[in-house]
């Protein structure tokens, strides 16, 4: 997809990045001790910390991923919003205050507070690293996606820019600057998402978004004995029929350009979008090189009905009127299918009832009418479970509890976070559906739905939203790298290996670890290009919920928990969730193998790996009860 670069977008983007770097320089001068590097000295106001929580949490996954998923798959994307927010309930009611009481800089400290056991230090620091890396991948992918339309640069350059800026931020100032960057960015993201939602509602539904209705070519097919054999149009030459995804496609040629068409139920060949990779590796978009701009943006309303009458547009709608109007409308979505024999990916138009867009089932297949089976249903439960339990097990979120002065502040900042994040997640439904109906979708990247929708309403709004989204990625990556560097320098080197470092060396070790993790994240961001960032974050939640959640909750609420039980549970959680993800259908698609050959039939492993980690924790703890006689008794759990 080709986007025009706007000078305003570039200027606003540069201003944002400069402001973020300026803030880092300012706080760098104040960061001298390990306490200020890892935990901002424990002096952040609860209100600021609450919005910074929102900044941390509303990562690329929320703004880019969820909006994109809702735009392409309707309500199923919103399930992520519901699950991500529900996770905060677990964080508030179960872990916020006890964790604040137990820890120092990292979540490993809290887990280890009662035991002082090497096994916990090692496994918890590994788990922090693994979860943070899983979470880093989608942020970097999102960053790459953003710079393509914003600055007209290739995806990998975006990943490199984010990686470099963040390494710089973290290596200079640590948690204090990360907190203020997150605070500003979190607040701006919520304010401008509200503005964007206002535009969407004011615009309402229209058959001609932007004054243009995309007219798709429809040709008459020649079908003999139930087989597609040609096209009844002099201009086009029939070049073969292909079966894929239960559909029949025709390859047609006109004036040396190949295009792909879908054979629909009425015997018409309907124009599609196609990406073909030639033998010499050249990518052809709708039969022509990218520079010829033959690709176009899609997603529009094809029928609007109000009170039994068909309309061209609805005019401004209220927040509830918007859903009521969609309930009676028809939308054209685009579905993707791979035609392997022809090295081509086709996106074909799929008329969808607006009602289906505001109900679950288009992506996760919970309903039998959408082809659900036992595994797709279990996958849905697995995802909802991981999202619910994952938040309170994310190390980069948990470290934020150490930046406030008291348990009471930890609680209050969590509530501020819930209100801010909850409000934003309600807006995701409007932004995602708004993108689905205004002809702005880029079929190659579901992640760009939100920013491209903003572009539809004006380059100024697009520039601001994109710059905020970019800052979102910067802030979240910074938080993740602080958490990872804490795991390496504080938990592993200092506590596990017992390298007695003074304060200055500890900060230096943290910065070096930040550099290493940052470089690794850049490489992963380039490798995973093209995957939906919310889906990837969902996987990070699965790993966190499996590796950390049982350990935290049993430590707080079960007397008989032992150090060995915690360590074994963390290890089981990491291994089982990561292995099952590697054997899942989505990863098989990534490897270029048929998804049906994946040994594990679900994308989300939580339903297997979380109970497994719990069982291991309970069994190992019961077998090692004698260890508890020596546990550190100073700490009372809640």
């Amino acid at each position, binding site marked *: 997809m080709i986007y025009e670069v706007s000078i305003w977008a570039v200027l606003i983007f540069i201003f944002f990045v400069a402001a973020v770097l300026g803030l880092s320089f300012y706080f760098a001068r104040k960061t001298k001790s390990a*306490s200020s590097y890892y*935990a901002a*000295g424990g*002096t952040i106001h609860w209100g600021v910390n609450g919005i910074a929580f929102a900044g941390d949490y509303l990562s690329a996954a929320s703004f880019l991923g969820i909006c994109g998923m809702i735009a392409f798959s309707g*309500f199923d994307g919103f*399930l992520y*919003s*519901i699950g991500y*927010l*529900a996770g*905060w*309930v677990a964080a*508030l*009611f*179960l872990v916020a*205050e*006890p964790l*604040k*009481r*137990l*820890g*120092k*800089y990292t979540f490993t*400290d809290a887990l*280890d*507070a009662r035991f*002082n056991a090497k096994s916990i230090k090692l496994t918890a620091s590994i788990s922090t690293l693994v979860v943070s890396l899983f979470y880093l991948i989608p942020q970097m992918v999102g960053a790459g996606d953003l710079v393509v339309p914003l600055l007209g640069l290739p995806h990998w350059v975006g990943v490199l820019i984010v990686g470099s800026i963040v390494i710089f931020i973290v290596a200079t100032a640590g948690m204090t600057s990360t907190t203020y960057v997150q605070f500003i960015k979190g607040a701006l993201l919520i304010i401008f998402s509200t503005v964007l939602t206002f535009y969407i509602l004011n615009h309402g539904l229209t058959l001609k978004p932007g004054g243009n209705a995309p007219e798709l070519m429809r040709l008459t097919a020649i079908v003999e004995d139930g087989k597609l054999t040609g096209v009844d149009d002099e201009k086009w030459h029939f070049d073969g029929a292909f079966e894929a995804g239960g559909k029949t496609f025709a390859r047609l040629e006109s004036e040396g350009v190949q295009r792909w068409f879908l054979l629909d139920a009425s015997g018409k060949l309907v124009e599609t979008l196609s990406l073909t990779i030639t033998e010499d590796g050249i990518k052809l978009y709708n039969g022509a090189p990218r520079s010829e701009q033959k690709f176009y943006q899609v997603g529009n309303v094809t029928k609007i009905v109000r009170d039994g009458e068909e309309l061209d547009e609805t005019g401004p709608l209220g927040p*509830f009127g918007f*859903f*009521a109007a969609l*309930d009676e409308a028809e939308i054209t979505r685009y579905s993707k299918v791979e035609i392997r024999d022809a090295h081509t990916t086709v996106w074909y138009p799929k008329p969808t009832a607006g*009602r289906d867009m*505001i*109900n*679950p*089932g288009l992506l996760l297949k*919970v*309903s039998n009418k959408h082809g659900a089976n036992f595994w797709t*249903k279990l996958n*849905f*439960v697995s995802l*909802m479970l991981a999202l*619910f339990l994952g938040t309170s097990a994310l190390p980069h979120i948990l470290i934020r509890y*150490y930046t406030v*002065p*008291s*348990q*009471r502040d930890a*609680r209050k900042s969590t*509530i501020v976070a*819930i*209100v801010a994040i*909850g409000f934003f997640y*309600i807006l995701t*439904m409007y932004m995602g559906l708004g993108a689905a109906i205004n002809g702005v979708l880029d079929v190659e990247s579901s992640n760009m739905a939100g920013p491209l929708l903003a572009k539809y309403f004006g380059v100024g709004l697009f520039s601001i939203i994109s710059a905020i989204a970019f800052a979102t990625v910067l802030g979240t990556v910074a938080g993740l790298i602080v958490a990872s560097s804490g795991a390496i320098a504080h938990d592993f080197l200092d*506590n596990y290996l017992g390298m007695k470092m003074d304060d200055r060396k500890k900060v230096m070790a943290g910065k070096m670890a930040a550099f290493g993790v940052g470089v690794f994240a850049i490489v992963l961001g380039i490798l995973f290009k093209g995957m939906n960032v919310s889906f990837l974050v969902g996987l990070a939640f699965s790993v966190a919920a499996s590796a950390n959640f049982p350990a935290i909750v049993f430590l*707080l*609420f079960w007397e008989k928990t032992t150090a060995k039980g915690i360590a074994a549970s963390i290890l089981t959680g990491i291994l089982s969730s990561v292995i099952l993800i590697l054997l899942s259908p989505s990863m098989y698609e990534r490897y270029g193998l048929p998804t049906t050959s994946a040994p594990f039939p679900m994308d989300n492993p939580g339903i297997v790996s979380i109970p497994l980690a719990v069982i291991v924790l309970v069994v190992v703890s019961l077998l090692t009860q004698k260890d508890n006689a020596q546990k550190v008794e100073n700490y*009372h759990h*809640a």
Partner: protein
Amino acid sequence: MHHGPAVKLEADKAAARKARLGVILFIVYALIYAGFVAIGLTNPDLLAIHVIGKQNLAIVYGFGLIILAMVMGFIYNIICTRYENAANKKMEDRT
């Protein structure tokens, strides 16, 4: 290695009561959340039914879960603050 908090924390005499309240509220929310998942799983067509005006159950339940989290958060904070004030008052009375 010392693992204490990054800052000196006040004594929290209300911790046990707050934790108990937290667990209860968590279970209440988890059940309501599980209800949503269960409907999606066993009878997804129910989610398409209009429940308030022309709003379907999916939207009402989904938005409701988000708003409920906010409301329960406020309630939890109010009760916890009361517990803390009561516990601190008892300590003051003793001294």
